[in-house]
Structure formats: C-alpha cells, structure tokens
C-alpha cells in the first residue's frame, strides 16, 4: 500500500536526522505511482503531485517524526477536496419549482444507466415521490423491455413507445405524460453512446433542450481508465452535466476515474452504485473514495 511504500522511504533515513528534499521527491514518485495505478488521469496526477509536493516541502513535514503519515494526510486531504468534500450540499438532487422534476441519464455503453434509472426511481419513491421512468433507448435490443421489467419489479410506471419512434420525440411526449399522471419525478433513460459520435451526442443535446431536465447525470463505470476525462469533457461540453453517478463500486476498481471526471467537469458526484439490485444506491462520500483511490 502507499502507506507501506512511504514508510519504506522514510524508514531508510531513520537516525540520519532531517528529511531531505530528495526524500520528499522519492515519496512523490510513490504517490504518483499509486494514483496512476488507481486510474487517475495522467495530466491530473502531475498537477496533483506538484501541489502535494509544495505542501510536503513545508516545515511541518520536514520536522515531523512521522513524515509518511503526514504526507498521506496531505494527499488524502487534497483528494477529498478535489472530490468535492468541501460542499456536501452540491450532492443533493435539484428539485423543480413545479413538478415533475426531470432527471436525465447519459453515458457510454454498458456504464449502468438503465439499472440506475431503476435505482433512482426506487430511491425517490421511498422518499415519498410519485415516480415514472422513460424508456428512451430505441437502439439496444430489448432495452425497452429491460426498463419495463425493472418498472414491474418496483411497481413504477414506465413510459414507452413502439419501435421506430425517435428518442427526441418520445422524451418530449413523456414529459406531457408525466404531467398528466401528476408525477413528481421523471427519470429519462437514454441509449449508451460514444462521446465521439456527433449525431448521437446531438441527440442527447436535443433531448435536453426539449425536456429541460433539472439534472443531467453522467453515469460512469468505476473501472474506467485514462479515457474518463475525455468522455466526461465531451458530454459536458455537448450536453451539459449537473452531476455524476459512479457505478459498480462494489468491485475492486480503485475508482481514480472519479477524480478525473469530477475535476474536468466541475460537477459533483451525486450517487454511487454498489450492486446489481435496485436498492444498491448510496450517497457519495468523498473521504471514503479518497481512501480507496489511495489504496
């Protein structure tokens, strides 16, 4: 672990007295390696390590009897801050002035959007909301059935239209349906798409324009590697994001992609997916993720 690796560096100079700048540089190399192994973006790691190094070269660390712990502390604090630890309010869902509050889920193929539409629906219903879901993925085989089955399991209504209809129209009609049904929360599930597919990126931008959701949440797989930054940046620039959901956190991926997407978009991580069942949704805890990223 990083703690052990830093201990090794500083144990080596026990009895030699002061820590030198070289010792700190060695420690920074270990921090860099730990963050890259955790899938934090390469460029972000550079900036981050420079920031930590500045603090680590401060008098406190150089005089410390436990420099390894001190440096880990600095790294942990910087991670928590970058993950949005300083603003817990930001992680709340923004409700509409008048119902329904609309949440739109977007992201790459297979990231967990459909499953999390259902999880969010269950979550809001538990909080007393009248929820509906919209099956707007018209391209993946049986995508509509997938959301409908989840809706049946949860006893939550799903708005769906026949094959051949366009998502930009379906979602618009769904909002009208939600008002007719007096729903207070409407969740739009969209098809997985590549950030470099212009036509499909335009499609979600149009859906957003037409439905005016309160939240546009990028669903990101916790095991995503270096590409996370580019994906998040494109979605944010083309569609505009208000938040992030980090999925499959029940695995052992370190989750460094979370840091990268949070940093490049500036939007908060609102939820974490921690399993395949519809109750596996947790609020986001920055300090827990910071510990996990550090390994």
């Amino acid at each position: 672990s990083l703690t052990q690796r830093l201990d090794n560096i500083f144990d080596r100079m026990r009895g030699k007295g002061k820590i030198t700048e070289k010792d700190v540089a060695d420690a920074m190399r270990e921090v860099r390696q730990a963050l890259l192994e955790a899938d934090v973006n390469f460029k972000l790691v550079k900036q981050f390590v420079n920031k930590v190094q500045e603090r680590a070269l401060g008098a406190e660390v150089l005089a410390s009897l436990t420099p390894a712990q001190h440096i880990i502390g600095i790294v942990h604090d910087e991670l928590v801050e970058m993950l949005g630890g300083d603003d817990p309010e930001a992680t709340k869902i923004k409700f509409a002035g008048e119902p329904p509050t609309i949440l739109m889920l977007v992201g790459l193929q297979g990231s967990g959007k459909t499953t999390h539409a259902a999880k969010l629906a269950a979550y809001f219903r538990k909080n007393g909301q009248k929820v509906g879901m919209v099956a707007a993925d018209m391209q993946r085989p049986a995508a509509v059935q997938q959301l409908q089955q989840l809706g049946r399991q949860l006893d939550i209504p799903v708005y769906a239209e026949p094959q051949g209809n366009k998502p930009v129209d379906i979602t618009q009609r769904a909002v009208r349906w939600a008002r007719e049904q007096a729903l207070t929360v409407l969740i739009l599930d969209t098809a997985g798409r590549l950030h470099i597919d212009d036509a499909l990126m335009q499609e979600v931008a149009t859906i957003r324009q037409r439905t005016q959701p309160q939240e546009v949440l990028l669903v990101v797989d916790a095991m995503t590697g270096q590409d996370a930054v580019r994906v998040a940046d494109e979605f944010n620039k083309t569609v505009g994001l208000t938040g992030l959901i980090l999925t499959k956190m029940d695995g052992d991926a370190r989750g460094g992609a979370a840091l990268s997407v949070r940093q490049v978009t500036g939007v908060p991580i609102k939820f974490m997916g921690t399993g395949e069942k519809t109750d596996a949704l947790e609020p986001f805890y920055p300090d827990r993720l910071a510990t996990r990223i550090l390994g």
Partner: protein
Amino acid sequence: ALEHDDITDDLWDELEETLITGDVGVQTTDKLMQVLHDRVEAEHLTRGRELRDALKEELEILLGDPEPLVFSDTSPISVFLVVGVNGVGKTTSIAKLANLLKRQKHRVMLAAGDTFRAAATEQIKTWGERIGVPVISHQHGADPGAVVYDAMQAAQARGTDVLIVDTAGRLHTKFNLMEELKKIMKVLQKYDPEAPHEVLLVIDATTGQNGFAQAKQFVQDSGVSGIILTKLDGTARGGIVFAVASELGLPIKYIGTGEKLGDIAPFDPVQFVDALFE
C-alpha cells in the same frame, strides 16, 4: 519530422505519456522504458523514429502471436463459454461471433445463460432472430446450469457444431458468482470433459488497471483461453491487454469495434499497436 529527429528527453516523455494514457499501466510502462533504454545503448539508436519502432516491437512481443479460435477435434460440438464483468459487451460479442461463424458455414446455437438480469434472455433472443440462429433459454430466474444442460441436449439433437454460452455479468470479486460459473462449467464437462473448448473473457477497452485484476481472477476461477476486447471504436486504447497478454499468457482473439453485427474482427497485433500511437 520524427524520421530524422534525434532522441530527446521530450520524446521519452511523449512515449511514456502515450503508454500511460493508453492504459498500459505504470508498471508495464516502466518495464518497457527500461528495455528501450537498454536497446538504445546496445543498438546505438539515435533517431526518434528508431526509438518509436523499437517500442512498437517490444509492445508486439508482449502481445504474443495471434491465436485462432480453438475448435474441438474430438467432439462434434465445440463449446465456447463467454464470461466477464457487467456491461462489457458479452451478449453483443456473442451475436457478432455467431454471425461470423454462421457465415463460415458453422451450425451455431446460443445458450441464454444469463437468467438473472432484466431482459437478458430477450436481448439474446432478439439477436438470435436477427442472425437466424437458435437460442435455448429458460424463464427468468432459472438455474443457468439447467439452461446449459438443455442447450447441450438440443445441440446434439440438431447437429449443431458450435454452441456459444452467454453468462450473466459478474464482478470477479463476488465469490458466490464465481462459484456459480464453476458450476456451469461442471455441467459442460459432464457432457464433454474437454468442454468448454474456449473460455472467452470479454474486456471493455475503456477499462483501466482493474482489467488486469479481472483477468487474473477469471483465470483462477474459470480458466480463460482467450480475450475479446470490445469498444475499440471509442477513444480508449485498451492498453491493459499488454499486461494481460504478457503476464497471464492470454491471447487476444477478437476485437469489438461497434454495436452492429459486422463490428468484430480477428485481433491484429500490428494494427493494435499502431493504433496506440495514432
């Protein structure tokens, strides 16, 4: 300009950045950088172009030689078991592979072994209809072992020569799900001790270092005979496969390059390495 430029510190940094941002991983990258430094010295390399070519060679070495799909030579039915974590592209890759093999005149059948996820059976049945390949399935919640047993019976009855078994996505860290996979394999082995003839692990190209942990665990629990690397039509380079191939000895057999049936190709190591530098 790289053709005639000298090797500079900037070039070393640029190559390191290309590898790390391609998800090759810091440890594999460090090893490659060390090998390159040794080669520059031993071979007196001076041009940037020579260094880049040397790196491409070393990357190709890590991937090993291309290996084709293994068909059974003792049984009339070759069984391919497709495994991997959630959402990586197993079901879609099975449809693509089935289509490919059908065009090569194989008699293909699919087993809908994901009885857990919502509409998983409907998804693979839709693909089966589109390709014109029979799909054996049970109701939602059935024992996947029972589906596989049924499929083997049906395959024998119908003169099938390739049976591809879809399984539910499962995180490699979930003990009971990995045990379930072992049970599925036992059912196959009852029919033919050599089955499955391929255990194809599907890895998503957008996956970072966790891809190695996935491969390592599946090798341990189910065994893996080949990798299908999907979603290379995105901007992720799938660099984790260099470590997977070289340290676990796993051949990459196919790549997925999109969501349509035709978006599959046999793995070409030279093209793959070139793409890393594009």
